[in-house]
């Protein structure tokens, strides 16, 4: 872990980065923000860890816990909303059997989340499955896709 953090630290120095870019880099590397990594940087930069924590919890992009292997994102922008994204969300939650207090399945295979508009409103409703954008999605199609992934795992 330390080697990876050193690399991020170097990049931060070279690119005149800031605390947000450090967190983005850590997340890029580890998939989430490990507590240890934050304390490591806190010591390197003599910046209180609380400051990192404040930033990490402010921006919705950051995750403090590891995420699922497959990330399903349903857009809930206005266009998607009026075109029925609510239904997609309900069917996905049901299909994935998500626990009450978490958006990641217990087996760690799926993370499911809503996002504010991905800017593909003209093909609403939109779902992003592992970074691939699916437009004009329906609940049936989404369930089919999810089952497909489950089958291949």
């Amino acid at each position, binding site marked *: 872990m330390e080697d990876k953090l050193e690399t991020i630290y170097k990049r931060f120095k070279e690119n005149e980065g800031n605390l947000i870019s450090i967190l983005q880099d850590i997340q890029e590397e580890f998939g989430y923000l490990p507590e240890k990594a934050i304390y490591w940087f806190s010591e390197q930069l003599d910046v*209180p860890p*609380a*400051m*990192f924590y*404040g930033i990490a919890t*402010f921006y919705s992009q950051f995750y403090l816990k590891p995420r699922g292997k497959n990330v399903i994102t349903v857009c809930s922008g206005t266009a998607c909303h009026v075109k029925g994204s609510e239904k997609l969300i309900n069917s996905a939650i049901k299909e994935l059997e998500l626990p009450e207090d978490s958006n990641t399945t217990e087996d760690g295979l799926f993370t499911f989340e809503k996002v504010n508009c991905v800017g593909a409103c003209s093909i609403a409703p939109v779902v992003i499955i592992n970074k691939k954008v699916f437009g004009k999605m329906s609940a049936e199609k989404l369930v089919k896709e999810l089952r497909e992934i489950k089958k291949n795992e």
Partner: protein
Amino acid sequence: MIKVKIDGKEYRVKPGITILQVARENDIYIPTLCDDPRLEPYGGCRLCIVQIKGMPRPVTACTTPVTDGMEITTTNEYIEGLRKTIVELILSDHPNDCMVCEKAGDCSLQELAYFYGIRTNPYYGERRRYTTKDNNPFIERDMEKCILCGKCVRVCSEVQGVGAIEIAYRGFTAKVTPPFEKDLNCEFCGQCVSICPTGALMGKSSLGKGRQKDVKKIETVCPYCGCGCNMTLHVLRNEVIRVSSRPDNFHEGWLCVKGRFGFEFINSPDRLKRPLIRVKPRDKNSKELPVPDLNDFREASWDEALDLIANKLREIKDKYGPDAIAGLSSARCTNEENYIFQKFFRAVIGTNNIDHCARY
């Protein structure tokens, strides 16, 4: 100097200062929960909104600098209506358990609720609930009472230079917290406690010891390091129950952990209460660190102890001369005590063998 008009009256003021500063200097009341003259303006609570002629919407007095010719209205029905809504909103997300709250009587929010006569609140709804408790030994953090004024966060970073807490999350779920919601681990100066407008932050050692009524407040000086911080001892029934410091003193009311929370020794059961006379002879051969043990002594009356000392000192002086006696004074005694101690050695014993441990 520039001219501004506040509520119809003209004032000549320094340019660049804020409307709130002008108001404070001229004793014009504008309510605020998030402003403190010792901190950077924040503009979060919005209670200090005022109207300025020519501006489309109200602005906050704490963040808006005065400009020449500015015409400011600090109070009217409209503004007071907005302020009342703000207080109602804060109260709608507050435990409102003033009956048992440590801060009652000294709480800015309670004061505002009283001022605006808020008995029933038109706004109600979800309230923040926190189940985990902060187990640090110094500061009670009841975040359900927190109104997110951010003063604690600012004092911790701007004044104390620590940054142990930060506002985490956002919107309705925003919360002042140490990193990763752990127990607070900081310098425990308690600056945050002193500046908190509500009962969200309290000193643990004072909890349940008494509120404002009947508390005597005595101005004195901290017994620890040489900074000489002014402090106020809150005394109830012959017990110091709390220490605070006035923002208008020369250290601006700041204290450190020892000054603010280190007063418990006053009431320690270990305090010496009667003179002691040694009964167990000293073990001259041991160079080990002595272990204090009351069993080595017996209690004595003052007369007995003082007579013994006087006699012993006279005896030694007579036998070996005054220079066989020496005194060590204390850097923690008062000037007056130190003065008479050295006077005692010089004038009564007759020696200049007088020093204090921390003379260097």
